[in-house]
């Protein structure tokens, strides 16, 4: 890790639609280990927000506890952040989102934070289709406590101390598909080309967007025998498609061969453009996505890309029929029935 970040920026950095250069989206200096996959994902978040021309203060970043959950501090310093407690980010994000539907919510979690201590909240935030992007930085181990296996470590994989993991791994992508998540993607921290469009699409998805990002732990889980190491992942990765996220109605289909391109229209008029590498899979069909993941696992492959999306979903606010204005902007005049009504209530109780 570095202790200082040079202030110098290339004078010709390109400005986005808001007039900001990419450095405007940076956060505090990372205190994670040098080479940590999480920092690459953070860089992807910065790039995605920059490319989407998001006002940083209109985004709220939330996390739980662990290496991954520290990372929101390293992006978007003009955003409010909330580093909550272990495994409880989904509930805090739910409350925050209920209070103000107008902000963008980015949740960052880890495999321990999500698949173990936070499993209860994770599955329920999916059920509620909370409008947020939920990224798991998945390294299969507990870094801050020095490398214990997590619940996503593959059965039979070997950690740094040589212990073989005895237990079946929890596959978060399959699980979220089963639970009805409306946007499920999987990626690798070392594949920025794939990751950035996925993050952009996830941020724009009008419901719960889940991205499981395999993010090797360089210190505790990058050894031979680990299925979450850089080498293993690079050798076993299989992509569903190449993806591009197009914020507006720009036609870019020409890039791809006829018949292999799938365009998914989002609510705000933007597109996800997928160049399908796998022909036996349809990103709008939950069943085919489930099958594709299972097939990949059987072949010892990690399937990446946008696995499933349902752009026409109702988020929690729509299900609850909350008012159009954010609840945190309502005034006493909107909320308090007043004294004369209370007198009527009293009369009914006599």
């Amino acid at each position, binding site marked *: 890790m570095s202790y200082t970040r040079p202030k110098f920026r290339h004078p010709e950095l390109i400005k986005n639609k808001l007039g900001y250069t990419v450095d405007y989206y940076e956060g*505090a200096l990372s205190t994670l280990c040098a080479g940590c996959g999480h920092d690459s994902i953070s860089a992807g978040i910065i790039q995605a927000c920059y490319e989407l021309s998001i*006002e*940083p*203060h*209109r985004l*709220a970043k*939330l996390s739980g506890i662990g290496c991954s959950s520290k990372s*929101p*501090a390293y992006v978007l*310093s*003009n*955003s*409010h*952040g*909330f*580093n*909550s*407690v272990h495994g*409880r980010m*989904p*509930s*805090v*994000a*739910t*409350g*925050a*989102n*209920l*209070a*103000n539907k*107008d*902000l963008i919510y980015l949740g960052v979690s880890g495999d321990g934070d999500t698949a173990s201590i936070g499993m*209860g*909240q994770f*599955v*329920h935030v999916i059920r*509620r289709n909370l409008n947020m992007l939920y990224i798991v930085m998945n390294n299969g181990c507990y870094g801050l406590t020095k490398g214990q296996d997590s619940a996503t470590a593959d059965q039979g994989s070997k950690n740094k101390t040589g212990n073989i993991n005895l237990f079946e791994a929890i596959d978060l992508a399959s699980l979220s598909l089963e639970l009805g998540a409306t946007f499920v993607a999987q990626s690798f921290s070392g594949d920025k080309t794939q990751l950035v469009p996925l993050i952009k699409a996830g941020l724009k998805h009008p419901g719960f967007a889940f991205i499981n990002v395999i993010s090797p732990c360089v210190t505790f889980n990058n050894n031979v025998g680990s299925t979450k190491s850089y080498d293993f992942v690079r050798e076993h990765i299989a992509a569903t498609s190449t993806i591009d996220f197009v914020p507006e109605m720009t036609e870019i289909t020409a890039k791809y061969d006829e018949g292999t391109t799938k365009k998914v229209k989002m609510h705000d008029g933007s597109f996800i453009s997928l160049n399908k590498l796998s022909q036996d899979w349809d990103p709008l069909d939950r069943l085919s996505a489930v099958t594709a993941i299972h097939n990949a696992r059987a072949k010892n492959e990690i399937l990446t890309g946008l696995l499933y999306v349902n752009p026409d979903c109702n988020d929690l*606010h729509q299900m*609850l*029929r*909350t*008012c*159009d204005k954010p*609840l*945190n902007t*309502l005034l*006493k005049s*909107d*909320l*308090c*029935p*007043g*004294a004369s*009504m*209370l*007198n009527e*209530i*009293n009369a009914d*109780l*006599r």
Partner: protein
Amino acid sequence: MSLIENKVNDFVVRFANVNGTGSASANFLFTKAIFRMGIPVTPKNIFPSNIQGLPTWYEVRISEKGYLGRREGIDFVVSVNPQSMLNDVQSVKAGGYFLYDSSKKLHDQYIRQDINYIGIPLMLMCNEAYTDPRQRQLFKNIVYVGALAALFEIEFDVLEELLGEQFKGKEKLIPANVKALKLGADYIYANFKYPLDIRVERRNLIGNSIMIDGNSACGLGAVYAGATVAAWYPITPSTSVVEAYNAYAEEFRVNKITGKKNFAIIQAEDELSAIGMVIGASWNGARSFTASSGPGLSLMNELLGLAYFAEIPTVLIDVQRTGPSTGMPTRTQQSDILEAAYASHGDTKHVLLFPSNPKECFDLTVDAFDLAEYLQTPVIMLTDLDLGMNDHISEPFEWDDKREYNRGKILDAAALDNIVKFGRYLDVDNDGIAYRTYPGTHPTKGSFFTRGTSRDEYATYSEDSGAYKRNVDRLIKKWNTAKDIVPAPQVYQDKNKSEYGILFFGTSQCSAEEAIDLLNQKKIIVDAIRIKSFPFNKTVQDFIDSHEKVFVIEQNRDAQMKSLLLIELVANHQKLISVLNYDGMPITAENIFNQITNQILSLKSSPLKEEANGKKNKQNSITN
């Protein structure tokens, strides 16, 4: 003569029913009729943790003198539950009455020589009068209310009026109910001497009071307080808080044209999640709350610590029940005090509020939001099952339309533009309360990282001992600020009259006040104070300082309030004497009276006597 007079408007009726048989509305009809006749009345549900089939009791105390606590000694039992009949027969006071379903002959084991039996063939009458099996079951309850009306001289017009209100919009149901009432009354007129020596007589003692349960009052208070996000997990006895909030919000907060709601309610997956949602919503500038009970409070500990340390307003209504663990889920206790006061690991303290009646449930719920937002900390309201789930006579609710919500110290975009550097945890006003910002306020100013980890004044992560200590010391400064802001206790006397004081809170109020009268009748004078909040303000310390002995009345085994007083105030351990009740039933005046008189007797016969007397003389000389 005196016997009859004494028993007018002064007796206890206990209904022994089977859970899930529709007895609740009939029993409430009985209570409400007495209330409408201007007579003080207090009902208590004694019910099982069960949906259908187990015994449930409904105890109604009628008190001309306005004593609304529970009273021992049952004058009249309405027995419609064979399962509990043996115990129910035994529970009648000598000379009392036992009303039972005489459709079948009463077995010898139920016969006592010292009580009076009123047999009414409820089942046979209903089978004859109604054909629908459900009606036969339901109207048995109304038939016995009609019989009681005849026996106690409850005004029939009042009962009919109440039925009219109950079935407003379903008027078809009224005649069948009136018929059932008349069936019961006519049977009494034809077969028994009436009225009884215990009976009611119209009075004008209710004034403009209302009758409502505490949980509904809390739910209504949350609507008036402007709460927009409620997150909860079902748990007896708190469930009806959010249900009431929902019902009132559906009435007052739904746009009539669009159907859209100015509120959001989430039934969470557990209490951890419920309080997490409250914290998230409050952090983001909405007024938010949850309601729970002991087991939920245990689960919420972790996140309460986060809210305390990260300084996020959090409102939690804890309707206490009998612990520990699952305890007796449908019985009352005041046993979450220490758990709530110091919830979570590390050095934590939380603001507590102790309502005693429905009006205070309403008022303190509203106050809880103002306090939580002003102090940026959790506020836990400690009500209990007795207050929350039973109907109580209460002063009517009041609302001042000029009252504004106190949202606390919040910087908006304009305010941020006027400061050089925003420090989330800077003690600008020297009261321990720093300024906060809502997410999304300003493009470049006011953002910060909220965390449960240690941080400096500018919210930057820090493991520096100095920064840590400055922060936790500021939290204590804030705590001291709170002492002058939280609701002050009720002190019963302008000037002390006794060396003895009694201290109580919450639902012990009615019985404690009655006990004061009982003690006065025995020429024992006591001063009294009722605590409404924690941290304790100076009045509480003064009350303890200015009495030789203070009896601390509370409804738990371990004298938790006494412990809290000893921890937080300066007091001699022996000065505070516990008066405890922890069997799950609401405390009675008789119980308080007996414990206090026994303690005073033993004080006078023990070596403490000289000390007490000596100080008494000294005190007398001061007060004289």
